[in-house]
């Protein structure tokens, strides 16, 4: 964990108003793992005041990528960064995915911008794993397939792929994957994560999800990001330090 000034290489706007920010930082590129995140100071003024947490979306040589859409003040400023702009990055933060396990098929389940951490995960997956990417969104505009492999899509309105939630799509397709040694990696809105959790627990599937929370510090000093633990009702876990990736068995989403 360190604080570093990193230099923007370029800001890329994908079709659907999704931005990819390519940033130069050998130190981050070298140390960060899939599922970890960075806490980014978007401006040196006091407005916006707090850093903004972003998953690392991908790493390429000495560069890393962030993926986001313009949501509020902070992401608006980020989207306008240009070549040569310097941004203050705190990271690597959090635990990251456990992807070196005893399984043969990795299933990505992403809702909307929940796609962000997966290009990097897919890149880092050991060679011997198969990957299927289940990508959902409200409409076709919200489906982000950048950096995904073996893609199946679902939209609430049926404008692209399966009509229904991405978890429904998973339910329908799982039998056909013909694998008993599956690990699921999910990221997306809480409602999606809750239904994914239910499905995985009912079907005894190993599943890790990347969670979100409002955050101030991002590294465990403010206690701002609690998440209810299954094992210990007397104590919250911290999304920033104990997560953001949790096994669905361990947390109440």
């Amino acid at each position, binding site marked *: 964990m360190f604080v570093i000034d990193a230099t923007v290489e370029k800001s890329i706007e994908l079709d659907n108003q999704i931005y990819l920010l390519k940033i130069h930082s050998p130190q981050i590129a070298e140390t960060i793992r899939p599922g970890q995140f960075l806490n980014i100071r978007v401006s040196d003024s006091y407005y916006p*005041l707090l850093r903004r947490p972003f998953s690392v979306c991908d790493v390429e040589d000495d560069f890393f990528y962030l993926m986001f859409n313009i949501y509020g003040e902070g992401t608006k400023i980020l989207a306008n960064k240009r070549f040569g702009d310097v941004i203050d990055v705190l990271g690597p933060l959090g635990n990251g995915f456990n992807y070196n396990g005893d399984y043969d098929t990795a299933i990505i389940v992403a809702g909307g911008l929940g796609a962000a951490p997966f290009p990097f995960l897919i890149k880092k997956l050991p060679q011997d794993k198969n990957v299927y990417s289940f990508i959902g969104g409200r409409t076709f505009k919200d489906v982000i397939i950048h950096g995904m492999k073996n893609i199946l899509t679902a939209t609430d309105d049926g404008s692209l792929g399966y009509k229904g939630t991405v978890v429904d799509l998973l339910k329908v397709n799982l039998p056909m994957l013909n694998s008993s040694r599956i690990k699921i990696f999910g990221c997306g809105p809480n409602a999606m994560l809750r239904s994914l959790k239910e499905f995985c627990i009912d079907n005894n599937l190993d599943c890790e999800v990347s969670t979100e929370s409002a955050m101030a510090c991002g590294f465990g000093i*403010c*206690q701002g990001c*609690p998440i209810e633990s299954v094992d210990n009702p007397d*104590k*919250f876990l911290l999304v920033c330090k104990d997560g953001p990736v949790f096994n669905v068995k361990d947390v109440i989403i």
Partner: protein
Amino acid sequence: MSNVDLSVKVGTLTFRNPVLLASGTVGYGSEMSELIDLNKIGGIVTKSLSLKPRKGNPPQRIVETPSGMLNAIGLTNVGVEVFLKEKIPFLKKFDVPLICNIAASSVEEYVECTKILTEEETIKAFEINVSCPNVKEGGLQFGNDVSAVGKITEKVKAVTDKPVIIKLSPNVSYISEFAKVVKKEGGDAVSAINTLVGTSFDIFTRKPKIKNITGGLSGPAIKPVALAKVLEISMSVGIPIIGIGGIMNWKDVVEFMIAGASAIQLGTVNFIDPAAAEKIISSLEQYCIKNKIEKLSSLTASYNL
């Protein structure tokens, strides 16, 4: 090595420089130690401790506001026992004065905590939090009541020889009345200020963004209010003041010292720029050299009204 003397006194306490890290914004030091050299900091104030562990408030606990933030952590802490067993050993490794902040739900609990903790020699002083806006019992109930603050000061002083600093609430008409009673009951210093009560609503769900309904406002937004409170105390009560509230850089530190603070604490800025303390300390040194100030402590209450 410069000849500048950055050291400051707060009552009988001496700090190598006036920059302390505020309660609740440095945890128990371990995470911060990865980002800054704790041996250079003036001092550390622990997250508020209570007798038993506290789980704290459910999420959402934090929301950003213009140049500020609201928090309603609810005094999440490991409790006195775990603190002594698991956190103190780590802190012992550093040469940094440790101030133990205590928050309790009753006068008895304040006394009990102090009694236990005073045995631990690593702890140099106590900061008594009578002003947390985010818990039902204790907190503001005490912080807005002059006689309760007087009683807590008196009872806590009775069970420890170490300096007792009372952390005051800004959510009152005249903070100096509270500083006066602290002085009268033998308190060694006051910390000013804790957070201001605030809230924020989600206009779509019509729910408070913070689960606790209200939270405590901190950050640069509150700096003018904090400075006015420090000045008010300084002008009317002869008690050392630790200034807190919205400090972001060395200029803010100088401003608080001019307004009456003997030392200061950094809070919210630690989340935004964890290295702020180190930067500020070295800028203060530069400032003294440039302005030929031999003792930084000479700034305290040097206002020119």
